[in-house]
């Protein structure tokens, strides 16, 4: 706990945290939009980008308020999934974002951690909102997820509150190089293992991962990578008998 700069949070800092939360509030919508761009090229199934954009926008701006008013006046018409997402997930996080603007954050580590965890819990609540609840005294599929989701919302709100009420560490520093290259290596491996086989994907992934550290010496890394690839290519398919493609498909055929 070396740096305890949490209590000196400035106004500018608060605004950026609030903006971050606003983005968080519509993160699932943005994600679905980016995902839907793929459908133009025929990858994956689902709604097209235009439909996604319009549907979420109307849900956020019009559908959800209408549903709120409807619920208040006793109208129990079933809301669509997009409207529910806006209601259950986006609105509460947006409220938190607005509240953030007027608060002094004394421990950013706890406050931001608590709010993001709350977002996860709300998202889980939305994801299980289409499941059946209690049937008499027997649990439905959705009872337990909703129970624990609700509990997590409460707990994470508590954590966020601690971040407001007690002094604590500020946000830790995030490095980008290590996570990025390690993730890139993992994703490359996952995408390449089927078409390219163990030999190519393991070696290339090794080199990508090695880029994650600025101390890497290239020749040394290449030699170790080659040895490791050879070792894995012998160990997994032959010694352990696990079925795995060895070489790129186009070379084998």
């Amino acid at each position, binding site marked *: 706990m070396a740096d305890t700069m949490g209590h000196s949070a400035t106004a500018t800092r608060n605004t950026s945290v609030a903006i971050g939360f606003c983005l968080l509030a519509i993160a699932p919508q943005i994600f679905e939009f980016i995902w839907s761009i793929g459908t133009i090229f025929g990858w994956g199934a689902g709604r097209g980008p235009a439909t996604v954009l319009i549907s979420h926008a109307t849900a956020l701006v019009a559908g959800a308020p209408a549903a709120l008013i409807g619920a208040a006046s006793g109208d129990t018409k079933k809301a669509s999934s997009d409207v529910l997402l806006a209601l259950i997930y986006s609105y509460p996080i947006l409220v938190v974002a607005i509240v953030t603007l007027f608060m002094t954050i004394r421990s950013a580590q*706890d406050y*931001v*951690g608590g709010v993001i965890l709350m977002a996860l*819990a709300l998202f*889980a609540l939305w*994801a*299980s909102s289409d*499941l059946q609840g209690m049937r008499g*005294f*027997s649990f*439905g*599929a*959705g009872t*337990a*997820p909703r129970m*624990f*989701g609700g509990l*997590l919302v409460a*707990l994470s709100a*508590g*954590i966020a509150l601690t971040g407001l009420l007690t002094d604590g*560490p500020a946000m*830790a520093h*995030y*490095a980008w*190089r*290590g*996570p990025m290259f*390690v*993730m890139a*290596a*993992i*994703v490359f*491996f*996952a*995408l390449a*293992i*089927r078409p390219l086989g*163990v030999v190519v994907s*393991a070696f290339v*992934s*090794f080199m990508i*991962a*090695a880029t*994650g*550290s600025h*101390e*890497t010496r290239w020749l*040394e*890394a290449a030699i*170790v*990578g080659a040895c*490791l*690839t050879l070792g*894995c290519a012998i160990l*997994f398919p032959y010694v*352990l*008998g*696990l079925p*795995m493609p060895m070489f790129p498909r186009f070379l084998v055929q």
Partner: protein
Amino acid sequence: MDIFANLAHGFAVALSPINLLMCLIGALVGTLVGVLPGIGTIATVAMLLPITFGLPPVGALIMLAGIYYGAQYGGSTTSILVNIPGEATSVVTAIDGHQMAKQGRAGPALAIAAIGSFFAGCVATVLIAVLGAPLTKLALAFGPAEYFSLMVLGLIFAVVLAKGSVLKAIAMIVFGLLLSMVGSDIETGASRMAFNIPELADGLGFATVAMGVFGFAEIIRNLDAGAEMNRDLVQQKITGLMPTKKDLKDSAPAILRGTALGSILGILPGGGAVIASFAAYTLEKKLAKNPSRFGRGAIEGVAAPESANNAAAQTSFIPLLTLGIPPNAVMALMVGAMTIHGIVPGPQVMQKQPDLVWGMIASMWIGNLMLIIINLPLVGIWVRLLRVPYRLMFPSIVIFCAIGIYSVNNAPVDVILAGVFGLVGYWLIKHDFEPAPLLLGMVLGPLMEENLRRALLISRGDWSVFLTRPLSAVLLAIAAFLLTLTLLPMLRAKRDEVFTESEN
């Protein structure tokens, strides 16, 4: 005597050549993993899970068990020689062990750690054999309500002993419970929180999450934690392995206390080797006539935690074998290994699979003996391994993990999921959330939900069933008591002191 007949049977199984070989491989791999900082036991067991597919079930479990207790041994070597804990369980060993090494007493420190571990391993082996049968009988008196309460107790226990904020630890458990619910519902088959992704229909693989949160996250963290870890390796040659008479006299009571404490903490769900070693060190410091010696090379500070972590590593098999409840993340992976081989852990395992249970118990003793014999002469080799720089080690671990996860289901999606959980784990570390309770929640989640639903179904929706059944009420009362104790501010301050003093 039943126990002796059973143990004799166990030794007959464990002494077969193939099982001896498996035990040796497990112990060696475990030591290797323990020695190398940066790969944890959990990630290794997860990584090697697919390797055991082709083995007979007894051999597979013997090997996995060997990795677990072997790692407790290996961790101490790194702690003493390099002042970096090779394993989380050896964090406290580094405090006094490395000081001893600096004073030129690395040999006795290593020897005492090995002797302590061996003694603890022997006691724990006997304990499993003795307690196994009666606890199995107790398990038969357990209904769903009792199971649920026991798991609540275990989770609370994990919270109480976790370091840092209680609120955060509980939140992590609940987060783990939520993650465990992804996939098909056990009773209705409805798809829950799977977003129509076919790979999620079966739920999140425990090995996948464990590898992400403990394997990848650890690597990413190490990369930005000041690049190359500062390794002040003890360079001088290690001479005189044998401890003096005074060393032995000093450490004998510490080994006894450490073993006792470790055995108890290991049995309780939510406990485990990490907690045991911390608790044993604290106990020794409290009991010592001259506490200021600790931190300056007190041999008790090596003997007690090393005995405790080994004892706990082994006794944590007791709840798994008798009640079918995995008390920690490694045991949860063992459940996975058992299920792969068609064995459902629980009270019936002892009767139905005597070969497996007693063979594994006997193999633990043999494994401990092997460790003490191979470890001390091999210290030189382990030290040389430590000179492998991290910049070469981490990409190798990444690739090995990736191939390991891929081969579990032959599913590329699993690899990506593990990567995502690596980022989640990195985020957790940055916000001071502990990943261990999360994994425990994920492990116990399905069991808890099933028993909760069953208990309420039997009681026709009456929640008071958990309090009217005596056994369940007692368990919940203990849990409530523990939680109140933790939340009391005075004790909290003390608890923080216990855990923070060993972290600097």
